């Protein structure tokens, strides 16, 4: 079986580009050019140089000794939390801003939920001197004041999405509408492996630096090129796509995707799309999404804003449907506890999204000679208020 996108952007039955005709020229321009541009020598040279000198790559593959001892297995952390701006998101925004420049775009738009992708986009726009407009749900603007301030400080305009549920999915709708209204000079930097083809594939390619580095680093540390398990949290799924990428076709590598169960799968407040979702169309892609019987998209819930998306990237829908990946959902409480555990055992305060992944250690058995790589996708600075509230740290 094939786990990469085919030339029409389908991962098995999922993916494609279900877009209104108004978006056709923008998407078609990108589709025709993204592979050629991103594989060109000049692009690669600039991309690699920025990843090294600006983002701080390669990120370490850190052997977590205390965790490994406690769970009697070999645990490595791919330290994406050490990237500039605090998460893996910047790998993609660097790639896409270079793409936008080569397509002669003058203006950048993006959507953001918690603000991490918004900050990563505002950062690269500042770096390249491009105009930047970030769409953010008006509810999220209230909930994520520090990231709104960061985006503004970086020179971006933050526009409130006031339609629908006023969160990430509505910010995405607004960004798409902006792109319809500005089809010539604007590039839309989507922040995850979602949206119409070629976005899921393009974003996965930019994030694949994570698994490429992991291969090289494992060879050095463990004298083998692949681990037994790769584990990552999945909202839209970009950090997971990056960690899985070079291991997708290697069936000796077990893939584990961790979704947010929120207050519990059956609580009505969850974001576990693989369990609760049904096949449908969201933001131009055929995938699994949470919806009513009538096909109206519903609002998910997770304590972590980055996992709070009603759909999942088509690659992941395919990994789920084909059983290539194991999907596990972790509730808020367990994720929060792991935020504290990782902080105190390894001295790493993870983003709450990231903390979900580690909770797998409590629900699934691993063996002493197995090598596990977790994507430590982001740091917890942005979540301090939530941690403080939850653990009464004041």
């Amino acid at each position, binding site marked *: 079986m094939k786990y990469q996108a085919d030339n029409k952007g389908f991962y098995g039955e999922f993916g494609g580009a279900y*877009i209104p005709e*108004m978006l056709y020229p923008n998407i078609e321009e990108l589709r025709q050019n993204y592979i050629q541009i991103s594989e060109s020598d000049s692009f690669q040279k600039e991309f690699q140089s920025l990843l090294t000198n600006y983002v701080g790559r390669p990120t370490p593959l850190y052997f977590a000794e205390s965790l490994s001892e406690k769970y009697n297995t070999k645990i490595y952390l791919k330290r994406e939390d050490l990237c500039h701006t605090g998460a893996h998101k910047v790998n993609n925004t660097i790639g896409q801003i270079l793409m936008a420049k080569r397509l002669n775009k003058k203006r950048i738009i993006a959507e953001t939920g918690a603000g991490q992708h918004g900050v990563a986009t505002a950062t690269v726009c500042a770096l390249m001197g491009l105009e930047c407009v970030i769409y953010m749900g008006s509810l999220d603007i209230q909930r994520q004041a520090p990231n709104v301030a960061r985006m503004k400080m970086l020179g971006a305009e933050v526009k409130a999405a006031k*339609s629908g549920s006023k969160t990430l999915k509505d910010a995405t709708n607004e960004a798409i509408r902006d792109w319809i209204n*500005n089809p010539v000079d604007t590039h839309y930097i989507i922040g995850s492996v979602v949206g119409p083809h070629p976005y899921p594939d393009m974003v996965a390619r930019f994030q694949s630096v994570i698994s490429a580095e992991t291969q090289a680093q494992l060879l050095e540390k463990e004298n083998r090129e692949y681990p037994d398990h790769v584990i990552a949290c999945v909202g839209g799924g970009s950090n997971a796509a990056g960690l899985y990428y070079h291991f997708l076709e290697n069936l000796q590598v077990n893939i584990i995707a961790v979704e947010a169960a929120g207050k519990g799968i059956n609580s009505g407040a969850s974001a576990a799309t693989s369990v609760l979702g049904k096949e449908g169309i*969201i*933001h131009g892609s055929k995938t699994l999404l949470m919806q009513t019987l009538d096909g*109206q*998209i*519903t609002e998910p819930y997770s304590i972590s804003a980055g996992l709070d998306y009603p759909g999942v990237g088509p690659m992941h829908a395919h990994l789920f449907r084909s059983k290539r990946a194991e999907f596990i959902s972790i509730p808020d409480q367990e994720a929060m506890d792991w935020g504290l555990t990782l902080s105190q055992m390894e001295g790493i305060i993870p983003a709450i999204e990231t903390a979900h992944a580690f909770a797998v250690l409590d629900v699934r058995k691993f063996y002493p000679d197995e090598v596990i790589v977790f994507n430590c996708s982001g740091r917890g600075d942005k979540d301090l208020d939530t941690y403080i509230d939850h653990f009464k740290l004041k």
Partner: protein
Amino acid sequence: MNRIDQTFKKNKKLLSIYFSAGHPELEDTVPILETLQDSGVDMVEIGLPFSDPLADGPTIQESSTCALRNGMTTEKLFDQLENIRENIHIPLILMGYFNPIMQYGIERFCQKCQSIGIDGLIIPDLPIDLYHEYHKEVFDKYNLYNMFLITPHTPEARINFIDSISNGFIYMVSSASVTGAQKTFGKIQEDYFKRIANMKLSTPQIVGFGISNANTYQVATKYCSGGIIGSAFIKFLEKNGVAAIPKFIKSIR
């Protein structure tokens, strides 16, 4: 013959109206259709509300959200339209996003449309390529037309391709934008209308997006077969109610 083709055969400038089913009130669908027909409207597009209408501007977004809040569903709309052909003779088109149609079941949806007497569909997020490859057969089986959009940025070769596999009409989006009323059309839009007219396509074209009054309707229909009014009608309806609809239609032509 499909009612849409019959209507275009009459060879006058068409006026088509779009509204969101279930807005302003849940049970307004049939009264709106009857009043539109009585007012001399040539064709109606009934909007199937969706939670995430990404090609629509604020007016249609809000009417769609309101309709859903009122309790509109695909099933409910079909119930309301069950006996619509007893009184309504003008072409009826359902316009909706693809996801609710998928969830209803594409074949079941088409079958239902045929049994009610719906003449065609407009599904903005089902692109022509995917339609052609995966869904055309079932639409054809139930004699449903599926109309496609073109914009000022649609390449000429693609317009010709769309023309070659279209039936009914081609929906010309007036400018690069989401739906919404505009006060005037400028030279850029008029040039685009002229350019398309000069292509001498075999499928008739009607202009939508941005028509709001007699002036924009006139400019839009100078070079093509008709115009569609959505947002401006919805705003009027919300403010003045169903009984006032004839006044709005008179103000257009």
